[in-house]
């Protein structure tokens, strides 16, 4: 067959069949085209329906949790802010019997608590009743009321601190249809779609009835939508009231029913439906609604509670038991009457359900909690998980944050900065961006766990995290690294080892800068030189000149090496002034370095995330405690003991003046132009660091270090560590340690104490009465007493003398 003949054959067909010759043919062709378009339309709808139903139906935000909190006998209830913790967790007080998780009842000598169930990374806690026996404010005993046994501890579940959302901001807790109680499903279908199991997605009877009612009322007062249609509307379409949308809804509902079983459609509906608002977030699905309104899982819902939830679907905010309790009660009664009229329940069940009270407690809406910490966590997570995974996979991220400490940290920083601005008006800036700023980090030395983090004054104004992203000069905060290097690696000019009583000359020193271009003569804050002083005095009084001289003797290379081994990662400049902290560092690094000293010389990595758990409960990641020994326990103790002197007698003595009496060690820091004020200090179990300053560095001013006096002398608003940062630290640590037993810095084996004269470093005797107890690594203690006498420290007579004098 030639091409010509094919052409003529096709032309014939067109002439004969397609070119219409009559109206009927026209009509036939138009109908055919319409059918084609309709089939195409249905095919598109089918593709839309199946694509989402087959794929991932919902996006679940990943949620960030604080650390859990352990209750144990001996705690002070007020000290641990138990009621605050319970309130934040959504527990609410009741006066009758406790019948729901999330309730508590406080009486004179006991606090009954119905603990929520919670899926911990390693086990699922089923919840239960515990009784806290109190004596005054003190927790004396914990009893498991379900088993009637005493417990050594009870665990309060972690607090939700954030969720990583995409733009939709939805809270949803997926449930399976088989897990739901039949009465809940029955109740919802009775009020929303009683013929669900009879229709094919669209219920003509309901539509006709709704039309009749609407016509009678001359307004749209009743809808005829089935559960399937409602699902389609929520799942695929928008809330517009147009004919096109209604048309789409109708056919999509039919297609959905054709393609999927009823049970699957109902399950999707129950997980999809909107059930009200929690602050800025929508409450979606029966699982989340049950948790939000009743603090329990849907399986535990009573008939009355089910009726309330079913009644809310029509208009969740209008029938909210929190916002509109009367309407909610009336709506619940209507649902129950319907169940009664349908014969689903009997009169006694009706009466019981009707008498059930509505939930009264209104959970706090979601507000930003620990935003800088959450950013820090997210920053760490995005190294391993894509934003898509974080926003949609429903991961649970368990962190180390202690919410009560976080609240105390935020409060202390805010109050401290306000106080400074009030006391020194020249620190006040009108522009929020230029305001005085601050940051605070609290860590547990033994685990490296970050317990609190505030990265700035107002997250809304600036999201820059000054605790983890700022690079600032540490000033005198760096000095302990010089002393650590001396005590560990240093050899004195006489060839001996450095001890806390080794004397160093605080006398003028002239140094050349790295390129030998400039002469640098460091000065002390009081512009005086103090002559030969012990290492202790030099550190306690934060003497610049003595410290620079010591760094020169030890070698700045060794100092840098020490800082590195303790955990400083930011590049450090090998210049003489490094001894005074001129090389910039990140606050978290400094905190981490001090942490190693506080932890007996063991460096732990700062830890914010403990576990990452998948939505199905599988642990994806577990970050464990890892340590590196960077100082011996004896060396770390010597440094700690020196830093205790800073707090007890030195530049940080204001800590004591402010009433903080627990054993504490710490160091102030101020940079040369008063741009940065620091204080970091620790008790045996908690370390915190405070930085105060301006984001933009201020013009250079003459002066130097660590002194309250400078402020007074100059009469100017100079930020020193002792004035600006120390009070914030003290306020925070007072709150953070309240209710906890006082612990001591325990000297490790190999440490001995000797009473020495502070000025000379010699053993105190009748020639220099007084003196202080000094710690030494055994064998390095002084042997000479004041006045030239030879004292064999540690010898029998010496010990006898001590025993007689001290004991």
């Amino acid at each position: 067959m030639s091409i010509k003949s094919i052409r003529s054959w096709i032309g014939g067909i067109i002439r004969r069949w397609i070119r219409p010759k009559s109206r009927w043919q026209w009509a036939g062709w138009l109908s055919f085209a319409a059918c084609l378009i309709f089939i195409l339309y249905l095919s598109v709808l089918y593709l839309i329906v199946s694509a989402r139903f087959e794929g991932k139906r919902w996006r679940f935000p990943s949620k960030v949790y604080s650390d859990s909190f352990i209750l144990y006998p001996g705690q002070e209830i007020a000290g641990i802010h138990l009621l605050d913790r319970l309130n934040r967790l959504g527990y609410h007080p009741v006066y009758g019997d406790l019948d729901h998780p999330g309730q508590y009842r406080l009486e004179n000598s006991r606090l009954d608590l119905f603990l929520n169930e919670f899926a911990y990374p390693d086990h699922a806690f089923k919840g239960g009743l515990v009784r806290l026996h109190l004596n005054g404010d003190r927790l004396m005993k914990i009893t498991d009321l379900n088993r009637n046994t005493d417990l050594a501890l009870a665990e309060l579940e972690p607090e939700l601190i954030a969720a990583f959302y995409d733009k939709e901001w939805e809270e949803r807790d997926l449930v399976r249809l088989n897990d739901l109680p039949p009465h809940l499903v029955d109740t919802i279908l009775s009020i929303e779609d009683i013929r669900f199991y009879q229709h094919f997605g669209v219920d003509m009877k309901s539509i006709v009835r709704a039309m009749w009612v609407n016509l009678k009322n001359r307004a749209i007062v009743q809808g005829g939508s089935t559960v399937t249609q409602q699902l389609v509307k929520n799942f695929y379409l928008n809330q517009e009231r147009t004919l096109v949308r209604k048309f789409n809804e109708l056919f999509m509902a039919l297609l959905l029913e054709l393609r999927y079983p009823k049970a699957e459609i109902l399950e999707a509906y129950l997980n999809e439906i909107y059930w009200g608002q929690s602050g800025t977030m929508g409450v979606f699905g029966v699982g989340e609604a049950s948790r939000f309104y009743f603090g329990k899982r849907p399986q535990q819902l009573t008939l009355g509670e089910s009726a309330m939830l079913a009644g809310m679907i029509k208009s969740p905010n209008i029938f909210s038991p929190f916002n509109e309790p009367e309407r909610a009660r009336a709506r619940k009664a209507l649902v129950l009457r319907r169940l009664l009229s349908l014969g689903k329940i009997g009169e006694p069940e009706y009466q019981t359900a009707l008498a059930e009270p509505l939930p009264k407690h209104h959970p706090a809406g979601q507000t930003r909690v620990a935003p800088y910490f959450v950013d820090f966590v997210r920053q760490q997570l995005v190294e391993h998980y894509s934003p898509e995974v974080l926003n949609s996979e429903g991961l649970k991220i368990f962190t180390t944050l202690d919410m009560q400490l976080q609240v105390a940290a935020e409060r202390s920083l805010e109050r401290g900065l306000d106080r400074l601005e009030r006391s020194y008006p020249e620190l006040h800036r009108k522009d929020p961006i230029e305001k005085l700023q601050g940051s605070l980090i609290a860590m547990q030395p033994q685990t490296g766990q970050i317990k609190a983090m505030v990265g700035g004054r107002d997250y809304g104004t600036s999201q820059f995290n000054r605790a983890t992203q700022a690079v600032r000069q540490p000033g005198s905060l760096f000095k302990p690294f010089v002393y650590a290097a001396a005590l560990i690696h240093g050899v004195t000019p006489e060839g001996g080892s450095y001890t806390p009583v080794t004397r160093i000359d605080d006398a003028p020193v002239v140094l050349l800068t790295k390129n030998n271009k400039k002469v640098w003569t460091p000065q002390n804050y009081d512009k005086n030189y103090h002559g030969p002083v012990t290492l202790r005095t030099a550190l306690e009084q934060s003497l610049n000149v003595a410290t620079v001289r010591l760094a020169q003797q030890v070698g700045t290379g060794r100092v840098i090496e020490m800082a590195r081994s303790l955990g400083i990662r930011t590049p450090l400049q090998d210049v003489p002034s490094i001894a005074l902290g001129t090389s910039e560092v990140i606050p978290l690094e400094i905190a981490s370095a001090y942490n190693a000293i506080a932890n007996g010389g063991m460096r732990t990595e700062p830890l914010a995330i403990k576990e990452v758990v998948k939505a199905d409960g599988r642990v994806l990641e577990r970050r464990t405690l890892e340590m590196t020994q960077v100082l011996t326990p004896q060396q770390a103790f010597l440094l700690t003991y020196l830093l205790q002197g800073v707090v007890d007698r030195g530049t940080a003595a204001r800590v004591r003046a402010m009433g903080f009496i627990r054993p504490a060690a710490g160091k102030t820091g101020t940079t040369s132009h008063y741009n940065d004020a620091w204080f970091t200090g620790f008790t045996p179990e908690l370390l915190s660091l405070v930085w105060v300053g301006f984001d933009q560095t201020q013009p250079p001013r003459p002066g130097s270090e660590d002194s309250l006096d400078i402020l007074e002398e100059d009469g100017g608003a100079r930020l020193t560590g002792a004035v600006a940062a120390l009070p914030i630290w003290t306020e925070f640590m007072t709150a953070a340690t309240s209710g906890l037993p006082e612990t001591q810095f325990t000297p490790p084996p190999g440490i001995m104490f000797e009473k020495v004269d502070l000025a000379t470093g010699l053993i105190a005797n009748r020639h220099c009465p007084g003196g202080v107890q000094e710690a030494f690594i055994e064998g390095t203690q002084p042997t000479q007493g004041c006045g030239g006498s030879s004292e064999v420290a540690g010898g029998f007579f010496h010990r006898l003398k001590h025993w007689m004098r001290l004991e």
Partner: protein
Amino acid sequence: MVRLGSVRFVLLMLAAGLLPACLSSLSTTPDEELPLKPVAGSEQSAGRQQASIELTDQGRQLLESGRWEEATSVFQKAIALLPSNPYPYYYLAKARYMQQEYPKALPLLDQAERFIGDDPIWLSRVYILRGMTYEALSRFDEAKNQYRQAQVRDPSSPAAQDGIERIENLLN
């Protein structure tokens, strides 16, 4: 070079052969029978000690049933609650050892030792586990030294004697 390599190879093989022996001795050491007693004077709060010890005990049971990861979490919880409780450090080190993460076990044992005080039985246990860890790392002299220290603290310890004999046989 070849000779040195061969010696290392032989030592490694011997260490690999010793590992099951060490593991079996670890699993037979009667940790379970040892009381996790409060460390006198280390804390004022008996309640906190008891709670931390309870958690340690829970972790120990998980460890015995081979649920190392879960045990690790519980030990860390015990440490966070009472950082001066030596036992969770010890068991965390044991978990690391069982997971063959030997270098990570050592600092944990140092921490345990630091907080144990002068309890000779527990010190002996720390030295034995440290000895075994050194053994697994082919640091035989240090291992022997640890077993000796364990023996000094607890002369009746069979694990210390076994360790010494094992190392002596290996080195001779």
